[in-house]
């Protein structure tokens, strides 16, 4: 579709057309967290490169990690990975043609939001030495 803009072929309805539901939110969040993880993995590559190349570069990356911004990035990355992982399991289940009933899909969407948030709290608490 090289002449995309000029094409007469119809596009499917865009985001703002749909009534807001938790399943819609989960669908958008799946893409959003995917993009966050993409950026996070690139940032984490800086961390390993610093670790391999020089203590000075590592110290610079480490200073960001230990700043308030670094804490927000880590919490955001952990929540995104948990959400994307759990919602990804929903997608794999759907690939088998199951779990599409309205009640089921709505319940699993809520479940993913709640479980990802609780697990994030636990991992951040334990990761920063809360249990030790």
């Amino acid at each position, binding site marked *: 579709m090289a002449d995309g803009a000029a094409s007469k072929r119809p596009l499917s309805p865009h985001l703002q057309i749909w009534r807001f539901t938790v399943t819609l939110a989960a669908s958008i969040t799946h893409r959003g967290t995917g993009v966050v993880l993409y950026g996070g993995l690139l940032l984490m*590559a800086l961390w390993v490169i610093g670790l391999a190349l020089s203590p000075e570069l590592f110290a610079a990356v480490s200073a960001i990690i230990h700043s308030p911004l670094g804490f927000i990035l880590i919490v955001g990355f*952990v929540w995104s990975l948990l959400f994307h*992982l759990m919602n990804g399991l929903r997608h794999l289940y759907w690939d088998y043609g199951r779990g599409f009933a309205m009640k089921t899909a709505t319940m699993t969407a809520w479940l993913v939001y709640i479980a990802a948030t609780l697990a994030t709290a636990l991992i951040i608490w334990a990761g920063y030495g809360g249990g030790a």
Partner: protein
Amino acid sequence: MSKKGTSAFILQRASAVILAPLSIWFLFEIVSALTADYATARAWLSVPLNAALLGAFFIIGALHMRIGLAEIIVDYVHSWAKDVLLFINWLAALGLIAAAAWSIYTIFFAG
């Protein structure tokens, strides 16, 4: 991306199935690894299991994220910029694989 739909679909699912257990390991380790000092972090990555699993997470993650972002680009960009973005997307994934593999290899064999 024409005529690559089926293989991308399969690779997306296959990588997801491998990334699921890898992510659980990753989530257990990553916060303390990222917040560690230089010597501790190098010691952590010198453990064979950690080096292998972090390397696998980066490489399989790069393949998975490339397909996912390509899907988003194709959905929202309908101009000439689409091909440019898809190319940059490829470069980012390959760069990530190269950087992670080289770094982990270097640290692991430096001891």
